[in-house]
């Protein structure tokens, strides 16, 4: 080994410590018996019990999950449609403009997106009476608008990588265009749809700024509740909640890894 070969491992360890020490301390303090977040008072699962009784947090989590589920699903449908039109309908005149417009929300500051959507909802309510008030519906619509852009980009790149002649071959074999889309295009781009859905779900679950603008009374999302709680001082209940979320994410990642690993092994076996 070269002299000084230890610098790289040490840097590596430091990097990981930097990344994971905060998370680790959060997990540890979620089992703290003491009310004070920074003082260790012995091991206890007290805050988990309290979390289960905290209807405000549980309600917000339920709202967040619903919003994330619906907005991800709608965003996948609309985003796929947009990507398909942009990729497959040749070079129509407004194509460049449309591409720009579809992807603009990716770079738009959230504050502006949130504010403009709020103005839209308010004026729509005045004009046509819908959406009546603000709440889950408006948050979902708002999330669809920005998640759609991400989905469109993901799907577009998958469509670009897809061999055009697949669709032509299906048509040549007697399938009408709609049939071709459902039989061939959709299955081939399915991985992109799954990826897009997961991305949209996560983005929606994560969003604080836009939701704060367009939500109404009784429809606070989880990030909003956590944020407002933390402003009053970090509560150990939030630590417990965060630990549960980390656990869920870890399990999700583990399942995904295992799945990919199995797929690869299968592919090698054949």
């Amino acid at each position, binding site marked *: 080994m070269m002299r000084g070969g230890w610098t790289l491992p040490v840097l590596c360890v430091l990097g990981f410590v930097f990344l994971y020490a905060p998370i680790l301390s959060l997990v540890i303090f979620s089992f703290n018996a003491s009310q004070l977040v920074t003082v260790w008072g012995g091991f206890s699962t007290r805050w988990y019990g309290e979390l289960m009784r905290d209807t405000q947090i549980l309600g917000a989590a339920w709202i967040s999950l619903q919003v994330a589920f619906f907005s991800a699903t709608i965003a996948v449908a609309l985003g796929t449609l947009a990507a398909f039109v942009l990729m497959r309908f040749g070079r129509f005149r407004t194509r460049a403009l449309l591409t720009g417009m579809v992807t603009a929300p990716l770079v738009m500051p959230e504050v502006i997106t949130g504010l403009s959507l709020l103005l839209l909802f308010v004026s729509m309510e005045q004009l046509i009476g819908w959406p009546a008030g603000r709440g889950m519906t408006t948050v979902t619509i708002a999330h669809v608008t920005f998640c759609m852009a991400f989905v469109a980009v993901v799907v577009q790149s998958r469509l670009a990588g897809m061999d055009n002649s697949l669709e*032509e*071959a299906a048509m040549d*074999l007697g399938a009408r265009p709609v*049939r071709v889309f459902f039989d061939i295009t959709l299955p081939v781009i399915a991985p992109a749809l799954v990826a897009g859905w997961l991305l949209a779900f996560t983005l929606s679950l994560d969003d604080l700024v836009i939701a704060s603008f367009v939500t109404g009374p009784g429809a606070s999302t989880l990030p909003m509740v956590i944020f407002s709680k933390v402003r009053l001082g970090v509560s150990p209940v939030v630590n417990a909640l965060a630990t549960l979320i980390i656990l869920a994410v870890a399990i999700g990642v583990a399942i995904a890894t295992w799945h990919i690993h199995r797929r690869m092994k299968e592919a090698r076996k054949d």
Partner: protein
Amino acid sequence: MIQNAHAASSRPWVAETEPPFLRIQKVTKKFGDFTAVDEVSLDIYRGELFCLLGGSGCGKSTLLRMLAGFEAPSEGRIEIDGQDMAGIPPYERPTNMMFQSYALFPHMTVERNIAYGLLREGVKRDEAMSRVADILKLVQMTQFARRKPHQLSGGQRQRVALARALVKRPKVLLLDEPLGALDKKLREETQFELLKIQETLGITFIVVTHDQEEAMTLSTRIGVMDEGQIVQVGEPAEIYEHPSSRFVADFVGSVNLFEGRISVDEKDRLEIDSAEMGGTIHVGHSTSCTLDQKVWYALRPEKVRLDREEPVGEANRARGMVEEVLYLGGQSIYKIKLDSGKSVKATKPNLLRHEDDAISWDEPAWISWGDTAGVVLTR
């Protein structure tokens, strides 16, 4: 040989015993200002295996795609079995296409890939499956029926693609460089299989290729394309022995071209004064040309005789120096630099395993050929 398979009785393009099955009439395709296919007219008969031969970018695929219905002609008319194809979408045409990239559906098994067309046609599932089994047997892929395309080798994929296009028994089968991805040996085997299948099913094949040997082996007739135009149509031997232009002569096989001017034009013989040849070329037949016209004399390398001593009796001869000898196994190619400075290629079969006395490079040698060996070209 292959030529015998298409016996004289089955040559409707010679005797016009039946109407053409597929008519392409003055078809032009423009992409913006660019003309990809330029006023192509072709008549193709039932049961033919017609090869479209041409260099890269000459418009072969575009022509094929217009037959399949993926592109609409800018001008002209396509007729299949008496039916005008204008405005008929691909999914309603009596054609099937085998794509250059095979275009197998990656998420379906071999079986389902092949059954797809039949099911879209409304064939019952049981019947479809039995037809799939039949065609799998024909292309010798039965044991791979349950595999996905990514689990197959290139040659196997190609056979699945062929089976998928064949199973619907189209009136016309279009094949875009069907054997492009195969190695030489597999390619030759598959060519014979393709011929066998074509003769068994009697389907009209149109094959695009840029490989002139492949075109020679497979086809009843060849259409040579250049820059969007069909420059010559004919049977393989006709294209090879009677090319109509320098382009065709050069594209199909190897050729020596001598530029010259007609100096004697009689009923059954010509003389060409050629500086490149360093004298006069005697031709034992006449063509439509006028005295003093600029022409090219095309001579295939295998028609050139090579000797050490000045040969007697041949109508044409010239002296030169052997510049290069390329050993190809079955034959050798000699490059001879004539006294006029022109390089001429001659091939010679390697009949003996060791020929100690073989003519080799830097030796003076004579080339000679008879007065019927070459062709006079005016273009």
